[in-house]
């Protein structure tokens, strides 16, 4: 596999790493100002990442969402974008402490491997690539947000129950806000995933002649979709909120990761691309 050195991705990794370290330091430090340095590093990383993605798109001539590495890179970028938006709106600095490691891990393959220069299967290089894949990945980003909110909820809940008023307690927001953002993230992620599945089915019809093939990835995704449907229903009708909702968001996202990565790596099916 010959390719171009992913220099911009490497720069992004360095900046996300700096953001991660600064955000971790922010948790233990007394200095409120540290968070602005972390956010600055993250923002620069985001810009470098954007340039990297643009460069890659121009270089290969299609939207770079055709393999696991590229999909994870896009996921990382969209996750950081979402974080910056949430940070701007709600000022939950500590959110970065949880998001940045996730973004960092997701972009490392893109920085470590040379950019793919394979010619794309013409059946894949269609307008559907622009619609199906981003929708599905943005759904994953939403569920990742819900997951992080769930983790933060459980930590804050534990601290409040056990009466440990440490630095984390002061920096984590209220349980109500965490539960609310968890709810919003699932509310947003579910329609995105639904549209992702629908457009995927249509794409399948045009490219291969069948809407649904029960490929392992499709099946796993459908399972997570049903799971989130139940979660939504539970919240709206029987009070699956607060601690229970936090657990469900965590379980759901683990399922998503399994469908997303497991479906690609473990099972060699039709859907070995994303």
């Amino acid at each position, binding site marked *: 596999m010959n390719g171009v050195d992913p220099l911009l991705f490497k720069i992004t990794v360095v900046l996300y790493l700096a953001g991660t370290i600064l955000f971790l330091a922010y948790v233990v430090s007394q200095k409120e100002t540290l968070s602005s340095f972390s956010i600055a590093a993250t923002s620069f990383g985001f810009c470098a990442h954007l340039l990297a993605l643009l460069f890659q798109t121009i270089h290969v001539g299609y939207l770079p969402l055709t393999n696991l590495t590229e999909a994870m890179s896009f996921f990382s970028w969209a996750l950081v974008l979402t974080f910056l938006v949430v940070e701007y709106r709600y000022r939950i600095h500590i959110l970065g402490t949880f998001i940045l490691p996730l973004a960092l891990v997701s972009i490392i393959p893109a920085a470590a491997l040379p950019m793919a220069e394979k010619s794309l299967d013409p059946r894949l290089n269609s307008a559907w690539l622009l619609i199906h894949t981003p929708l599905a990945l943005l759904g994953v980003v939403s569920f990742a947000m819900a997951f992080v909110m769930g983790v933060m909820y459980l930590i804050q809940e534990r601290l*409040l*129950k056990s009466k440990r008023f440490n630095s984390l307690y002061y920096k984590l*927001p*209220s*349980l*109500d806000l965490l539960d609310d953002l968890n709810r919003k993230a699932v509310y947003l992620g579910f329609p995105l995933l639904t549209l992702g599945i629908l457009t995927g089915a249509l794409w399948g019809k045009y490219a291969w002649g069948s809407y649904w093939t029960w490929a392992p990835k499709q099946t796993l995704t459908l399972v997570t979709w049903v799971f989130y449907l139940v979660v939504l229903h539970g919240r709206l009708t029987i*009070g699956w*909120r*607060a601690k229970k909702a936090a657990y469900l968001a965590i379980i759901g996202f683990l399922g998503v990761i399994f469908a997303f990565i497991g479906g690609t790596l473990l099972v060699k099916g039709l859907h070995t691309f994303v």
Partner: protein
Amino acid sequence: MHFVVVGLSHKTASIEVREKLAFSEQKLQEALLQLKTYPAIQEGLILSTCNRVEVCAVVKDVSDGLQQIKQFLAMYHKSYSPSASEEELTPHLYTYSADEAVRHIFRVASSLDSMVVGEPQILGQLKDAYDFAIAQKSTGVILNKVLKKAISVAKRIRSETRIAESAVSISFAAVELAKKIFGKLDGKIVLLVGAGKMAELAARHLINNGASKILITTRDYEKAAHLADQFQGRPVAFSDFPWEMVDADIVLCSTGANHYLIRYEDVSRVIEARKNRPIFMIDISVPRNIDPKVNQIDNVFLYDIDDLQLVVRSNLQVRQQEAVKAETIILEEVEGVLRWFRSLDAIPTIVALKNKAEEIRKAEIGKALSRMGDLSEKQREAIEGLSNSIVNKLLHAPMVVLKEETHSTDAGLFIDAIRRLFKLTKDPS
């Protein structure tokens, strides 16, 4: 002119000493007038609260000034307890001068020297003391400068550090915890069980912070109805109250009962009926009225009096850490005031005035001579002489007055006025 502070506080004197020395509002006017009669004292201000007495003054000579302020305090002390003497008072007094004095008054204003660091009352008390001193015309240019700065430094510290942010009383700690659980308290319903004073206070704080409705129950329904009137709440029959918890987001319990009024099973059922909406339970009663096991139920947060005290203690720790930042700000601001003090010396002011006049004279002479073309040496000397004598005569009177006033009460006023009228240097702060 020197700025000094003599005082005592909760750190140096017991309540017995402080209460004897405290200046009541009625006595303050007389005391301030008396203070001004001491020869070394040019400007004065008295701050008297239950935790401290501070005499801030501008004095001609530091040691005379401090001595006379001590005499003044001893004499005042004596009028209450004739047996008291200056020696008795001295061990409780601290004295500061120059930068130490400025720093001390800044620390007092910013509540760094308070019993509860960061408490907000002291700034208001200092403002009142200052306003009173202004009304009595006992302040001058230096006290005005230092006190105004002290007030602005205190405000700066409050906005730039978190020194006054977290709750340091039990009832505020309850509000703070409620906010960590519910975010905003708007629309939240509080159930008050029993009519303990502390619970009532906490309920009041919760309402002030947005809680919209209050349910009240006591064993004596009449009493509950009476309290409900005060809070514009709703009285609830004591036998029914466990079920009222289904609506209540915050339960405040403080009764004299010596057994658990709220049991594990009650709360389990309530949480189920609430569809897992969290509930915050505060048990201020001793012995406790809520079974501690209740805290094990999901979405229930039970706090007893010790837990609330723990919140207060950890918040106090946060304040201590913030106080370190505040000290840095204070050092920085003291430096600014010291620079201003130095500018108030008469000699540098006279030199600066002379230099400024000479600068203007030279510039103007230069312009005039260049316009006049060829002049003889004599003509040139005449013009130079003319300019010199105009400048010297104009400046003569102000300089003589400045020199004369150097040791008077109003020296600072004159020097400050001269510096401002002639725009000698910018005020360093």
